């Protein structure tokens, strides 16, 4: 009888149906916009139509007199009320001066710096009334010259976005040793170089942001600002509101998060909109709600990537890499932020030597202000940009040395006996068996059978290419500590309270599986409580950190609960604590048939529950890694690129939820394929208008893409720096897919006769670019202009 019981328990390592799903498939999810507050007012933002302009006057008198309008606020109103700007840039400029940005305000004051920057809000009884009143606000703009490209922004005479940076350079960072790299390049048998535009992307979770805010007049939250929103980081939102709005402290702000319809990094941290809405509710003492339209998201939510780089690799005669040199110019948008800049100048470089033993680096990054939406975290956040460069260089080197690209990579891989390995950025990898992963990847992809498949494609008039990416990434956000509170309740549930945040990744299910491991009860007894800053606070969910930090804490707190409860059971059973044993929801006295159920024991306690809190601190980041192999077919008649094979072997350490991690890798890979083949945020160079401001114009992957992913995990290399042995998985697929796909396209173009010239092709690799390459031998000019 044991087998069926175990099957319903679903501890770690088993594929389980997610505990999140029954509500979501029946329409019972509770996303922020699904909740209507009694007496709720609606808020809309009026956004700048200009990329760069002085606001010389705002007349809100007509809007204020319109039906249903409760309040209209401008930037000037918020400044007068003492609402503070958001945090600035914590990194210095390359010249040593402090990092520069104009102050980012909830509503622009005096000047707008990108199309879509919010300049006013209207609060009204209905959305339609608010929209009509927003249309009636008259803003006098004095338009200024604008700039949307990093190199244009650094050019002499370019319009400056802030007084402290006439050159528009917000911050910069240099890593490694310039002289040592120069010497290595001078002595190298071979050098290769690629110029790359890691184009700007729109993260685009399908749920637009939504925020509701209220100040209850009575009840437990009387007089507090209670904000509910779609966020990965409730605690950061609480802190940001308390910092910005006069009269608020972290104690009198409560942030709640319900279901989150996708995050991908875009819903980390606080947004200006959150502050404006919080201010409106706090000032009016009435409930206020805002739901972003999709265009609000394209204009106002952070964008990702956008760095143009020249990357060079020096190699000896045998293909051993000697030095990596990177110079990158990141377009961070109109306002510099810690996150947006760190991603490009620091986090990417941490992984730039990847799984390769490259002893010398010289990397220099500059973050440039332009009249575009500020950039921030998007799935991978710096690692896709860096790994793309490294993997493109590996292929370029293999082409130059006429070596198998897999063999060249193998020659450069860090060996397991070098672990723990400190890379040229000082980052320490705890584990990694990269050649072992490579071997399995080549096997899964039938690497050696490629010639036959290429010939088959050729016979059908298609040009086939094969691309590989072997790589690692850094996870954890350097926020390595988590605490979990466990409540065992008299009504038969085990509640896990965590400050990490579900956003669709299935973390609640994985936590429940880890709790099942300890408690030995059925998974339907476990409830995961998140998204309430009155219950738990922490970094939130970002950087693929939740399982290895929060999951380790679930395990620790669950074990502590059982240990603590043994003492309670000893009391209840009138036996020495040392004799109490626990198994599958029941405490027993060793050697007797005396016992008490876990929930029964909870019912006997004051308050009807057993509570324990414990935490875990990981000893470092985790370094998930993989080998991704992609094959594409190009249609020479149209230039169309089709992914026709995709195999990946991934080392994410121990696997808790096999189905979930497969979904993370494959869904993530499709986002990476999106960057490789179709997605691009486009601004008009003259006017600064956002040209890709809807799903009609921003080309995300649709359902007509590739379905035949082969995805495997090697679980034999557990992480050594956390109790569970797990490594982050959320971003791995996105990071690997982009270079694997583009390397495959370049391979096909090379084979079609273009040779190394094919390396000039840029992302997104559209049909037009491929067609021009094949038929006209024509490529875009290098995006690198330093």
């Amino acid at each position, binding site marked *: 009888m044991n087998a069926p019981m175990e099957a319903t328990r679903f501890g770690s390592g088993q594929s389980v149906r997610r505990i999140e*799903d029954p509500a979501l498939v029946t329409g019972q999810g509770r996303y922020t916009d699904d909740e209507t507050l009694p007496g709720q007012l609606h808020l809309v933002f009026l956004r700048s139509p200009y990329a760069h302009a002085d606001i010389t006057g705002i007349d809100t008198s007509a809007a204020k007199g319109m039906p249903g309008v409760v309040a209209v606020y401008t930037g000037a109103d918020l400044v007068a009320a003492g609402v503070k700007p958001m945090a600035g840039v914590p990194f210095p400029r390359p010249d040593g001066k402090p990092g520069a940005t104009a102050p980012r305000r909830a509503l622009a004051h005096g000047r707008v710096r990108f199309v879509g920057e919010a300049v006013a809000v209207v609060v009204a009884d209905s959305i339609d009334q608010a929209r009509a009143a927003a249309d009636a606000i008259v803003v006098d703009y004095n338009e200024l010259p604008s700039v949307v490209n990093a190199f244009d922004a650094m050019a002499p005479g370019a319009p400056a976005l802030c007084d402290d940076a006439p050159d528009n350079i917000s911050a910069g960072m240099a890593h490694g040793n310039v002289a040592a790299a120069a010497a290595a390049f001078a002595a190298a048998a071979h050098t290769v170089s690629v110029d790359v535009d890691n184009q700007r992307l729109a993260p685009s979770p399908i749920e637009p942001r939504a925020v509701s805010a209220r100040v209850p007049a009575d009840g437990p939250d009387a007089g507090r600002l209670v904000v509910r929103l779609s966020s990965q980081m409730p605690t950061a939102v609480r802190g940001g509101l308390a910092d910005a709005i006069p009269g608020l402290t972290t104690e009198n702000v409560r942030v709640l998060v319900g279901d*989150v319809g996708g995050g991908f990094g875009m819903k980390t941290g606080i947004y200006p909109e959150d502050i404006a809405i919080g201010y409106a509710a706090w000032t009016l003492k009435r409930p206020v709600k805002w739901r972003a339209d999709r265009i609000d998201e394209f204009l106002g939510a952070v964008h990702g990537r956008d760095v143009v780089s020249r990357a060079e690799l020096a190699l000896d005669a045998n293909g051993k890499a000697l030095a990596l040199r990177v110079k990158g110019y990141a377009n961070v948008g109109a306002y510099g932020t810690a996150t947006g800049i760190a991603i490009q100048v620091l986090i990417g470089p941490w992984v730039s030597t990847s799984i390769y033993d490259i002893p010398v680096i010289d990397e220099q990054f500059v973050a440039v202000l332009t009249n575009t939406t500020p950039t921030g975290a998007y799935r991978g956040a710096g690692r896709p940009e860096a790994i793309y460069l490294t993997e493109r260089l590996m292929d370029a080197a293999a082409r130059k040395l006429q070596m198998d690209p897999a063999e060249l990579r193998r020659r450069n891989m860090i060996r397991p006996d070098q672990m723990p390995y400190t890379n040229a950025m000082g980052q320490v990898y705890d584990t990694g068996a990269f050649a072992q992963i490579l071997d399995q990847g080549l096997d899964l992809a039938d690497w050696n059978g490629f010639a036959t498949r290429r010939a088959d494609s050729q016979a059908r008039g298609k040009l086939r290419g094969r691309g590989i990416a072997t790589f690692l990434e850094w996870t954890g956000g350097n926020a390595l500590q988590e605490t979990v509170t466990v409540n065992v309740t008299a009504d038969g549930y085990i509640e896990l309270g965590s400050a990490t945040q579900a956003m669709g990744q299935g973390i609640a299910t994985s936590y429940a599986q880890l709790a099942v491991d300890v408690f030995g009860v059925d998974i339907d007894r476990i409830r995961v409580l998140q998204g309430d800053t009155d219950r738990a606070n922490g970094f939130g969910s970002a950087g693929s950190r939740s399982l290895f930090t929060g999951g380790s804490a679930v395990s620790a707190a669950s074990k502590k609960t059982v240990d603590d409860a043994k003492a309670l059971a000893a009391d209840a059973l009138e036996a020495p604590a040392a004799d109490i044993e626990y198994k599958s929801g029941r405490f027993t006295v060793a050697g007797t048939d005396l016992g008490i159920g876990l929930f029964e024991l909870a019912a006997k306690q004051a308050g009807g529950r057993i509570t324990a809190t414990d935490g875990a601190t990981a000893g470092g980041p985790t370094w998930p890694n993989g080998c991704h192999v992609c094959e594409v077919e190009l249609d020479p008649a149209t230039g169309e690129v089709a992914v026709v094979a995709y195999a990946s072997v991934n080392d994410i350490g121990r696997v808790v939820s096999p189905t979930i991690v497969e979904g993370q890798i494959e869904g993530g890979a499709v986002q990476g394929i999106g960057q490789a083949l179709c997605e691009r945020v486009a601004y008009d160079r003259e006017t600064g208008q956002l040209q890709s401001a809807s*799903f009609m114009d921003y080309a995300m992957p649709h359902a007509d893409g590739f379905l035949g992913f082969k995805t495997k995990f090697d679980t034999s290399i557990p992480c050594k720096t956390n109790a569970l042995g797990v490594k982050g998985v959320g971003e791995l697929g996105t990071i690997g897919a982009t270079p694997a796909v583009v390397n495959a396209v370049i391979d096909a173009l090379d084979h079609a006769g273009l040779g190394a010239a094919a390396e000039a092709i840029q992302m997104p690799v559209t049909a037009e670019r491929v067609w021009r390459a094949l038929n006209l031998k024509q490529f875009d000019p290098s995006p690198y202009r330093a």
Partner: protein
Amino acid sequence: MIPLKLTVNGRAVDTTVAPSTLLIDLLRGPLALTGTHAGCDTAQCGACTVLVNGESVKSCSLLAVQAQGAQVTTVEGLAKGDALHPLQQAFMDCHGLQCGFCTPGMVMTSACLLAKNPSPSDAEVQHALEGNLCRCTGYVKIVAAVQQAATTMAGAQA
């Protein structure tokens, strides 16, 4: 305001709406059926898909008054009591959802497809879902879920 009578998930609705009220706003607002989601402004994402007289329709692009006299089915109306629709079960079984925001639209579009084409090819499923965007799953497991549901429903018919 315009008088409006229609049937939503088998329940008669007799109400009045403004001429400009969209079907999605009637569903999510007065009818409190919040399983139908708004994800874009341009009828691209399909998260708002419902069935109107059996046809999958983006409820963000239909005026409520255009549903005068119609039979409307939302994701809340798909299960029969406690028994999930085979598509709902299949999306759970196949991990065809992550954040779940697009899922109601995916399920409703698929329900329309399977009603017309009980054993579609993968390519036909992909074509049917062209107007529904998912950012999480990469679509692979969604297509698998629709195929599982097709198999289940065919078995139930046999």
